[in-house]
């Protein structure tokens, strides 16, 4: 997935000279994960900018760059550090178009890795997507495959509205699939039914899609036909695809890595309730992290949803079958 992201940044920067990259260690170092490797050499220091360690200034100056007619693609080194830019992301970037009635547009992409499973220090792994989903004016995109990372990042950069592009830490090197060489665009707001099924659908985003897919495949052996829906973006939410597959299966499990309370899974279940409650044959089950701060490394495996927890949740929805 990392190569797909890097390649997309290369091709987009070559396509549109208004694109400027800014962030910590993205230039000479090529990013702490090498997502921006080779870009400073190719596009120069004026378009690939190593900033001071200033998340608020990264997000805030991106607003100014956008006002100047440029297209900033900012990196927040880890999503947990976005707390230090929250007032600029939530208070400024997300509402720039609205508060200026489109005089200014925030064609801004903020890339940030997130998610557990790699035993990082504190605040490197937190899944904050639901917190951002409660900020109108911000699109939130979470690819689960390398191919989607390319297609969605391309769309994100070209989108006239601000996009938070969240990259799964575990997926950087752990997710490998074929990526089209040519221009590849995946529109924002279109979910992907990555596995068809008739009995139950597992709904997820980002790295949890990969786990959900493995579980769905293993359930074939139990005679359970499980579909997997990758939301790809939580804002905009593909309500139509969600409703369609839940109505078809009648059972659903929603998987998120974030804490349970106030997580985006709750939003999905509320949407199912609104749209297709009467097609349900069992209560929808959530699989989540726990309502504690993201834990230290030795506790991580207890925290992050794994295949067995997803599997148990699916079996629970099948109990009344």
């Amino acid at each position, binding site marked *: 997935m990392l190569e797909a992201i890097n390649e997309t940044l290369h091709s987009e920067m070559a396509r549109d000279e208004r694109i*400027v990259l800014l962030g910590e260690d993205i230039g000479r170092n090529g990013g702490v994960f090498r997502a921006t490797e080779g870009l400073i050499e190719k596009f120069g220091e*004026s*378009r690939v900018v190593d*900033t*001071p360690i*200033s998340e*608020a*200034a990264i*997000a*805030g*100056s*991106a*607003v*100014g*760059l*956008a*006002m*100047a*007619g*440029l297209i*900033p693609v900012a990196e927040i080194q880890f999503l947990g550090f976005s707390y230090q830019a929250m*007032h*600029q992301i939530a*208070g*400024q970037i997300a509402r720039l*178009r*609205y*508060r*200026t*009635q*489109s*005089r*200014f*547009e925030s064609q801004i992409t903020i890339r940030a890795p997130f998610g557990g499973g790699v035993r990082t220090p504190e605040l490197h792994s937190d899944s904050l997507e639901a917190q951002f989903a409660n900020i*109108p*004016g911000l*699109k939130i995109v979470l690819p689960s495959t390398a191919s989607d990372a390319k297609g969605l990042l391309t769309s994100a950069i070209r989108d*006239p*509205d601000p996009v938070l592009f969240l990259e799964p830490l575990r997926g950087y090197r752990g997710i490998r699939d074929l990526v089209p060489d040519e221009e590849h665009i995946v529109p924002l*707001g279109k979910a992907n039914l990555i596995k068809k099924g008739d009995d139950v659908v597992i709904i997820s985003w980002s790295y949890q899609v990969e786990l959900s897919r493995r579980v769905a495949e293993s359930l074939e052996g139990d005679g359970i036909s499980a579909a997997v829906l990758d939301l790809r973006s939580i*804002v*905009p*939410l*593909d*309500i*139509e695809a969600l409703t369609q597959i839940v109505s078809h299966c009648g059972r659903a499990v929603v998987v998120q890595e974030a804490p349970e309370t106030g997580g985006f899974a709750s939003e999905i279940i509320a949407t199912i309730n609104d749209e297709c409650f009467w097609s349900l044959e069992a209560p929808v089950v959530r699989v989540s992290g726990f309502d504690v701060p993201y834990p230290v490394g030795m506790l991580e495996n207890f925290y992050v949803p794994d295949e067995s927890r997803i599997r148990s949740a699916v079996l629970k929805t099948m109990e009344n079958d």
Partner: protein
Amino acid sequence: MAKPNDKQLQMILEDMVIARTQASRLWNLQRQGQVGTIAPIDGHEAAVVGAVHALETESDWVLPQYREPLGLRRYGPEVLDTFMLYNLGHPAGGHIPDPVKVAPSQISLGASIPHAVGLAWGMSLKDEPGVVLVFFGDGASSEGDFYEAGNLAGVLKAPVILFCVNNQWAISTPTHLQTAADSFASKAEAFGIPGVTVDGNDPIAVYEAVFNARKRATSGKGPTLIEANVYRLGAHTTADDPTRYVPSDELSAAQKKDPVHTFIKDLTARGLWSDTKQDEIETAALERIDEAFEKAKNTPLSANSLMDHCFVSDTPRQLRQRSFLMDSTGKSNEH
């Protein structure tokens, strides 16, 4: 020229008098319940007007906080017209039309400083002439945004002027509780940029400071932090009662240095101002703000405006919310 000529001096005073006059009308409109909360400009006129008169309106951006708009007349009538919409709470009050290089008021203190740095940086990347001047107060200088953006501006040598209007009060908090530094301008040292302190009651001194900062910025030497010392002669806002905390002797001392009165005396002595001129300008200023107010009140508004301009196009969920809104307000398709 580093010094304003006679014509410029007259224009500066005109704009100061107009700002003061219109501020009093705005205060009355608020007291009549006709507009929302207002932050009066009283005491800041020389700092704001003097600063913008040293800028080139065609190329230079102004990012105000919220006390300045009445002092930005030089940027065109659109500023006041839009400001009146803003005061009414009309959404169009956030859209100062192209090509006026003024951003709408910023309520989040200090939040425009990184925007200014980014904008200035972007302009220099595009080889556009011009600078960005961002207004903020003594209180806002305690925000992280000021430090982060000032630091970044120094590193990038961005053509930006960080203009701190030190009016001695952050609502009720005096400057000695805001910082232990000798001055706000001294904070520039940490950014590796020049810090300049000026008498903000003297529009000529302010003009010169901004003129020099602008020259420095446009010649590629980077940003300047200017601290203009003024005294807030009115309340923080229409919702504030400064008699609770402003010492009356301090206020009356400050009133003796009132920038508008002082500059009137100065230009009258130079033969550049008269009572007649003053009357004419005040009358016209009131007519102008009343006209802007009437125009703002008559600007149409539909319930659709609630949903417009969040994204370029509605998300599926917003579409549903929009139709719910239209159904519940019975104003469908007014958009």
